[in-house]
């Protein structure tokens, strides 16, 4: 039995995992809005660097 079968099966499996991840991402709407997340990502940082008066409100549910 050649190792090629194992390698082929593995490579296709890995490819399929990424493919399914892509489909799920599209389905969840991650490709609908490509701008807002890029801005949102930066906010959390600012909240952490400014802990002064935001103690009670920092926790998101």
């Amino acid at each position, binding site marked *: 039995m*050649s190792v*090629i*079968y194992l390698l*082929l099966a593995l*490579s*296709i499996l890995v*490819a399929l995992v990424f*493919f399914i991840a*892509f*489909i799920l991402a*599209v*389905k969840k*709407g991650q*490709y*609908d*809005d*490509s*701008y*807002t997340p890029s*801005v*949102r990502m*930066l*906010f959390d940082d*600012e*909240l952490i660097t*400014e802990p002064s*008066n*935001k103690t009670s*409100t920092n926790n*998101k*549910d």
Partner: protein
Amino acid sequence: MNQANCFHCGDICVTTNIKIEEKQFCCTGCKTVFEILSESDLTNYYDLVSSPGAIPEEIVGKYDFLEDKTIVNKLLDFNDDKHQIVTLYIPHIHCSSCIWILENLHKLQNDISSSQVNFGKKTVRVSYNSENYSLKALVLLLSSIGYEPYISLEDYDKAKHSVDRSLIYKLGIAGFAFGNVMFLSFPEYFQVSGYWIETYSPLFRWLMFGFSLPVVFYASADYFKSAYKGLTSKLLNIDVPIALGITVLFVRSTIEIVFDLGTGFFDSLTGLVFFLLLGKFFQQKTYSFLSFERDYKSYFPIAVTKIDQQKEETPIQLYEIEKGDRLLIRNEELIPVDGILINGDANIDYSFVTGEKESVPKQSGDKLFAGGKQTSGSIEIEAIKSVEQSYLTQLWSNDVFNAANADGFTTITNAISKHFTIAILSIAFISTAYWLFADASKALNVFTAVLIIACPCAIALSAPFTFGNLLRIFGKKGFYLKNASVLEKLADLNTLIFDKTGTLTTSEKGKSEYEGLALTAEENNLLKSTVRSSNHPLSRQLYNILDKHNIVSIDHFEEHLGQGIEAKSKDNSIKLGSAQFVGQLTAKKPLNTEIHLSTNNIYKGKFTFYGAYRKGLSKLFNILKENYDLVVLSGDNDGERGNLKKLLPVKTKLFFNQKPADKLEYIKYHQSEGSKILMVGDGLNDAGALAQSNVGIALSENVNVFSPACDAILQADKLPQLSGYLKASQQAISVIKFSFLLSFIYNLVGLYFATTGQLSPVIAAILMPLSSISIVVFTTICSNYIGSKLQ
């Protein structure tokens, strides 16, 4: 004078006494917003972007209709006993601070569990606990911090639509299959025979076959459908040879691997579909923050206040208004139906309907038309028609609004594909016939090879990539097109029609002239100080025009809605406003906007405002007159005829007093005579003309504000560049024609291999991506070059 800017909204502060600590505010509204935000520790809002806010509007009673359960249910995305989710459109969303504050709504109100902004669409999706909180409270909260949502009749009618993401799925599948098939076919590219290939090639081939199945049966399904549609309507569109090519590729490849004749062309097949879908995706660029499909529904409110016999005020849904209903129209509200004024000071701004910006005073008993906006306090009207039958809304029952717009492949591609398909089929049959005599075993091989190699991938890609790229470039320059076919129509026009008010003229920076008795220095000071205190647009305009004077303190100031303002300082009093207001009863109905002025109850004179024409207009018209017929259709009276004649080229046709339906008919008539018409307009009064014309461009001072249904939206300050855009779209057509030529050359090379029976999978696999990619590169470079010459 200290010209401080408002800490909240960035406007110039007229007075200096509204402040908190060191922070200046222009009005108490802005100050209140700041207070609300600082109470909840949300002042980070001001750190992200300076002065991000908007002045909160007066909204008392405006959202009472949100207590109505059926209306609320129509607006909600999700509703169960405890939770409600709603998506609201908020026009003010414009910066990262907006995202931040709107996503931190839960800090302002505990019952809001989460909120998420879509910046591109300017929407916020809020979920909240509906046991203690309501949609109305949410809308009021948003309004109180300057983010008033825009809720229109359109939201009420809108069916809950799901997002169509099928193209992304298809593209993903085709790309996935293309990559894997390429890997699997590599061994056979380089090694033709040998032990290794002989042992494993069946496995590799069947794997490729497996990968190509979803590509053929799912990803390329649209091409088969479109080809079928084209054939049934006896039209050889570009999808016919594409579908034929895909079918032949798949069938021949399958036969080859079943009978162990060769590797097949799965690599070319998946690559072809992938590139085609890529082109489609590229062309599909849309501007999510713009809407090109608006009708009156996006302007009209969902509900108005009905007054029943017991004088009770209840909100009523617009479609439920019946003849004879008494309605209360508040200040700044739109009149939704044709009606008769019962009581109140009516001062109706019909700029939506006619494009004329001054408001018209009406007496009790006068007929009011739907679409007018009340501008001075509340009025009561009695409906005499239902919403759909009103004068303005009837315009939308015209057929042009219901005609289905043909979308899909552009005409230039389809025009060529007809000849192309016939040519390819004849070459295929002739060469097959030749090989039947020369070497019958190769005949079928040659037949399929011709159809495979001639599959018009490159041709199908030229238009999408050129148009798609130019669409993007135009968008960056402030000219937003609905889709690629608009670009093609832009290149083929011979008549340009312009609206006047709001299109050729600006709403701001009007010129004014003063007529009457000279004013003393003291009076001038008082005048300047008075208009400084008023927020009315005309006051602002007058303030900017007046020379600089000392500001005097005003002891008494009163603004009479829709009529004028009066002010007192020491011994002097001043009155500004309409002719009646200052006591000039004999004045004729003016042709232009006027402000009358009296001091100490003595009539002094009037300021007359003239609409200012946009800069660069003469130059634009002089360039355009070389190639196009130019027409101005105005809803206004002909008070400006003289000025327009001076400004525009002699042969420009001028028409005045054109009603919306007249404009539409004018265009229809000239189209029947063979004119290809571009209409440039702004208000709803042009909506019919914009829809009827070949290309309708809506001019907009602020693209985020609504514009009527159209094919393209142009930023108002870019109007002088219109000639450049028209020229660029013509050049784009030439680029496409050149790339057709280029792809014919590729096809000829391919056909040489095909007709001589030498087409191997490797040659197909090289030639196809090579032609596609080089066409994409060629069109991209050319369209970027065209775009770089635009201003």
